[in-house]
């Protein structure tokens, strides 16, 4: 299991050091600093073995988190734990920075004592942790016996992510379907790979221990229902009603065995914001934009670039925050840009022309052309021509996912599904959206 956990700043100074196992000595702290943080080359692996000691590290801005072990631990678990720890710290004191860590080091030690015991990860749900690890350490004394046992049963219990007795005057929930479209397209416009990775994020402000059921236009469910009885012709005629989900994963509150057998998503949600599910689709993706590049080398000292973008969705919808990034060679000496819409700028530090458009409606087209002047070089190696990448945000789900329902049942309290105010929002963003040129 995890033998120790260290946090370093960018210089390699130790900010937090907690050792769980006897086989990890103080020299392990230095070994990692010398061999990884101060290493000259780029990091070639997130797992490093130095003198039979294995180091797992992740970086958050310029802070290094390293877990150390001498045993054959579950590597996936160690990384999941490190991410989880980042989440917990963020939930407690915001951004993970050197200053914040130094300011909260007592709290961090307290957390580390609680969520990792002898190197075994324990309950690390912030919802539960916040009930008894507070920055006012005195709280322990004022708790009643009931409160205490409530805490322990929540931390160890089946529903470790939610405490009992939550009350809201207004029962409300927000569902965000957040998708990122990933695309890799050849210069000729052929789709090399495309997929949507989506998340359903829920903000719940519900009283008691509500039982929820979530439904979407999952092809398997729709088809099953279609077969089961009166077929919903309207649904079929309107075309793309259901979508094929390649795979999905759920927050630990979702009853997985029920999903496996009935494909129904039922759960008791944590209070506040959390990620209900993640999913991935690859079929029938709506690609919101198409990029058509044209790069021409004129002699050895000049490049002509022309890029056309076409929006491909309902004209009534508006895409926002559009940004096209056209890479330029390292030996660029000057760039002249002409664009019809938005603003374009050559950013020498980023080796790219960045073209920004605030808004663009569906079924439109826009174009940029640039002349790039190059310094002559002796470098024999040709310019690698990195792909043109794009960022945008659209108000629909490119996968076609639709939320069909989210039902809330709380039998003990006197509110019903109808009383809950529900909000659903779809946001499609660009993931890695690249066109080779």
């Amino acid at each position, binding site marked *: *299991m995890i033998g120790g956990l260290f946090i370093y700043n960018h210089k390699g100074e*130790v900010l*937090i050091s907690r050792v769980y196992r006897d086989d990890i000595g103080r020299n392990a*702290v230095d070994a990692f600093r010398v061999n990884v943080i101060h290493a000259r080359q780029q*990091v070639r*692996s*997130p*797992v490093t073995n130095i003198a*039979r000691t294995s180091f797992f590290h992740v970086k958050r801005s310029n802070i290094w988190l390293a877990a150390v*072990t*001498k*045993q*054959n631990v*579950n*590597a*996936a*678990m160690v*990384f999941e734990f490190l991410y989880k720890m980042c989440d917990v710290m963020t939930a407690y004191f915001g951004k993970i920075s050197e*200053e914040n860590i*130094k*300011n*909260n*080091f007592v709290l961090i030690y307290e957390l580390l*004592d609680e969520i990792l*015991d002898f190197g075994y990860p*324990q*309950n*690390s*749900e912030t919802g539960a942790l916040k009930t*008894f690890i507070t920055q006012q*350490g005195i709280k*322990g*004394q004022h708790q009643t016996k009931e409160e205490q*046992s409530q805490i*322990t049963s929540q*931390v*160890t*219990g089946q529903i*470790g992510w939610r405490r009992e007795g939550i009350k809201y005057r207004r029962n409300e929930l927000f569902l965000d379907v957040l998708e990122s479209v990933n695309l*890799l397209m050849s210069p000729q416009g052929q789709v*090399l*790979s495309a997929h949507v990775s989506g998340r359903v994020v829920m903000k719940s402000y519900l009283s008691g221990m509500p039982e929820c059921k979530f439904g979407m236009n999952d092809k398997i469910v729709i088809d099953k229902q279609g077969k089961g009885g009166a077929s919903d012709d309207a649904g079929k005629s309107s075309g793309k009603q259901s979508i094929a989900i*390649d*795979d*999905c*994963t*759920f927050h*630990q509150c979702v*009853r*997985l*065995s029920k999903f*496996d057998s009935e494909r129904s998503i039922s759960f008791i949600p944590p209070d506040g914001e959390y990620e209900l*599910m*993640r999913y*991935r689709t690859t079929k029938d993706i709506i690609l919101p934009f198409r990029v058509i590049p044209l790069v021409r080398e004129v002699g050895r000292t000049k490049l002509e670039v022309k890029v056309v973008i076409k929006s491909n969705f309902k004209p009534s919808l508006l895409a926002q925050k559009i940004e096209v990034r056209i890479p330029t060679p390292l030996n660029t000496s000057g760039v002249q840009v002409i664009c019809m819409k938005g603003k374009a700028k050559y950013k020498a530090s980023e080796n790219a022309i960045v073209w920004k458009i605030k808004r663009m409606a569906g079924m439109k087209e826009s174009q940029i052309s640039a002349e790039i002047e190059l310094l002559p070089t002796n470098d*024999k190696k*040709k310019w*690698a021509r990195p792909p043109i990448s794009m960022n945008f945000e659209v108000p629909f789900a490119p996968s076609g996912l639709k939320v069909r329902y989210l039902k809330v049942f709380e039998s003990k309290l006197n509110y019903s599904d109808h009383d809950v105010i529900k909000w659903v929002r779809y946001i499609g963003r660009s993931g*890695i959206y*690249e066109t080779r040129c």
Partner: protein
Amino acid sequence: MTDSKYFTTTKKGEIFELKAELNSDKKEKKKEAVKKVIASMTVGKDVSALFPDVVNCMQTDNLELKKLVYLYLMNYAKSQPDMAIMAVNTFVKDCEDPNPLIRALAVRTMGCIRVDKITEYLCEPLRKCLKDEDPYVRKTAAVCVAKLHDINAQLVEDQGFLDTLKDLISDSNPMVVANAVAALSEIAESHPNSNLLDLNPQTINKLLTALNECTEWGQIFILDCLANYTPRDDRESQSICERVTPRLSHANSAVVLSAVKVLMKFMEMLPKDLDYYGTLLKKLAPPLVTLLSAEPELQYVALRNINLIVQRRPEILKHEMKVFFVKYNDPIYVKLEKLDIMIRLASQANIAQVLAELKEYATEVDVDFVRKAVRAIGRCAIKVEQSAERCVSTLLDLIQTKVNYVVQEAIVVIKDIFRKYPNKYESVIATLCENLDSLDEPEARAAMIWIVGEYAERIDNADELLESFLEGFHDESTQVQLQLLTAIVKLFLKKPTETQELVQQVLSLATQDSDNPDLRDRGYIYWRLLSTDPVAAKEVVLAEKPLISEETDLIEPTLLEELICHIGTLASVYHKPPSAFVEGSRGVQHKRITGSVGSGESESPDTGSAAGASEAPPAVIPSQGDLLGDLLNLDLTPPATTGPPPPTSGMQMGAMDLLGGGLDSLLGGDLGGSSAMGAGFGAPTPAAMPASFNAPVSGGLDDLFDLGGGVGIPTGVNSAPKTVWLPAMKAKGLEITGTFARRAGIIQMEMTLNNKAMSIMTDFAIQFNRNSFGLAPAGPLQILTPLGPNQSIEVALPLSTVGPVMKMEPLNNLQVAVKNNIDVFYFSCQYPINMLFVEDGKMERQVFLATWKDIPNDNESQFQIKDCHLNSDAASNKLQGSNIFTIAKRTVEGQDMLYQSMKLSNGIWVLAELRVQAGNPNYTVSLKCRAPEVSQCVFQTYEAALKN
């Protein structure tokens, strides 16, 4: 809210100040001080001097302060064991606290204090906590048992904590179950044979129930534990699989990977025709793909594991090639791993896409990645024949980029393509030759030289090209030197007229100016080959090469099986068994897949072929050819040894014989000359024969030689009768009797192995200790059939004299070790020194006279041989049988003086004068030798030969 200030106190006298603050009356000040202490501890300052003062703060109502003091205790208790005792009372008291959080905190911390005295006090509180009414305390206590076990395993067993821990597996609280499972698994690892984790269908059922209810971490502990279970039949296996599959949808990647591990392992139990088996295979792909959308570090772990899964069950991901395409912003470690998997998944169906991608990658920035991409193109060509042509043209395009490392990498892989598809793509050679100058890496230079040598007849200026490499011969790496030597010899055999000078140059460079034994040996072999028989040389050097295999870097099947059992863990990331990186006994058990169906599949193809090879009579001539072939063939493929690899001395022996003129006959040169016959026949034949035939055949050979010799000179030395070397008493039933003989110039150790035990003996092997004349087995002990009880077998082991030398006492003592499946046995025996007398031991008269005078008289020794009734001619004949040659005979006053010479295998000459007086049965022998130590042994030989 600004604790960071504690990090900045670096004043002098700080410890003193802290001490004062710690002893302050004000609570707030105390707490501040403890915080400062902890901050100093974190950055590595030694604050152990404050131990008593900090411990004094322990008794407090303030939970935060208490936790800080505990943290300090855990760090320094070990260095101050006596003072740590002061804390015990507080711990014991806290374990009784009404607040479960405090009870748990106390028991948790106490387990982390590794001081013997404290652990004694820990037992009672721990026992209570294990049965606490609060689950939070129980789950903490469960882990504490593992902690205690790490400090004092015996104590845990004596106190019966293990049983309590086992009971916790049936606890009502899922988290308690999970922690108990984790603790038990860890303890079980250090007791490999104990039945601690008594996994049976009932406990498995409990675990599977807890799996649905506990935290994500608990699920990992339980799944990892489940993976160690072996289901009793396929039905149980299927039902466990069915209950584990829902975990594949968990958001936590570690849960998913651990579930994959359980499924991969239990799948082996399922019959392949089962519908469920197919369903399961289909269910595995999507979650594995989903892992690739996790954070990069997890992607890396997932990819390393997918690499294993793809090797074990390629069908799972065969349609998912696209997800492994490299993204521009992927970290380099993810890129390299993806590339590996792409090559493994490449097939005719997707090769076009793959090639297009690889070509893109070859223009990227990272050098390692680009190299790997170029290499991958070559591997695709070799794997998918239909794509070879496109691969070659892609590689040529890349060579045109003139990027140094791309060109070099391309040339290395093109060489492989030439090997795989001979006579197909040689048209590109011209392009390759253009880039000769830019090659600066040994591997690329060696590859290019190989190509030039292999296709010398098509390259007009091959001699010039090779000559240009020859200039800096001594600066090249061995790889290049060897390649250059072979290439020039190839060139010479193809164009003998123009390149004679070149070949002589390289041969002398290799044999005379080089310190590298490999290079020198290869040089000598070629030299000899070329000078004796160019036709044979051609057959050997230009022989057809064995094909190269399609898959490279495959993990060896048994290791792969073990790694599959470790999916998700570090072992699967390193692709090494845990024993390779974990110290001590912990976690080094070898896990194996126990499959009913998989066994046929998992059998390595290697063992099959090896078994086949050892069954066939190992004909020496072809295998020598192989050996040569391998020497010549770039050493790309591991040498295809037939049967057990011969010990090094055997190899040397082979080489010696090749040089000693035996080669001609081996390679079918001028077989027939009786002198060559002796030498050429010798070494290989006995080794080649299956052991059971050995004795009679070599007997027959003797006869043959007796006849063929014709002149009446016996070629073989008669051997002494066998004596018992190793009595059965001393060797668990194995009795060895034996003797030595010299037959046709070959020293043989003739043994009878007699099995007097009740069980079968197999796996015989023999080894000699270093000895005075460097005797060593020339080949492995050829006993192919197991030796049953009361069976005996005759073996003749040919010996060489090129083994390591160490002077023994007596000189002709030989220490032998014989191994079989039961044990290793040692014995020693003495060999008659005439075994070492070589056939060409007859000295020229003049030389004899000169040598006799030259050797100082001190070196002369005289012996008497009594009761010998032979005349001088008969004696001379008898001695000649032992390779003691009479050079001259003189008769002085009725006394015959025979002047004789003999030569030992290590080149020592012994000169002798034998005086025989008619009527007198006592002979006198005078021996003169530069190494007088041998005289005694030689005298014994005289006596034995004359009296026999």
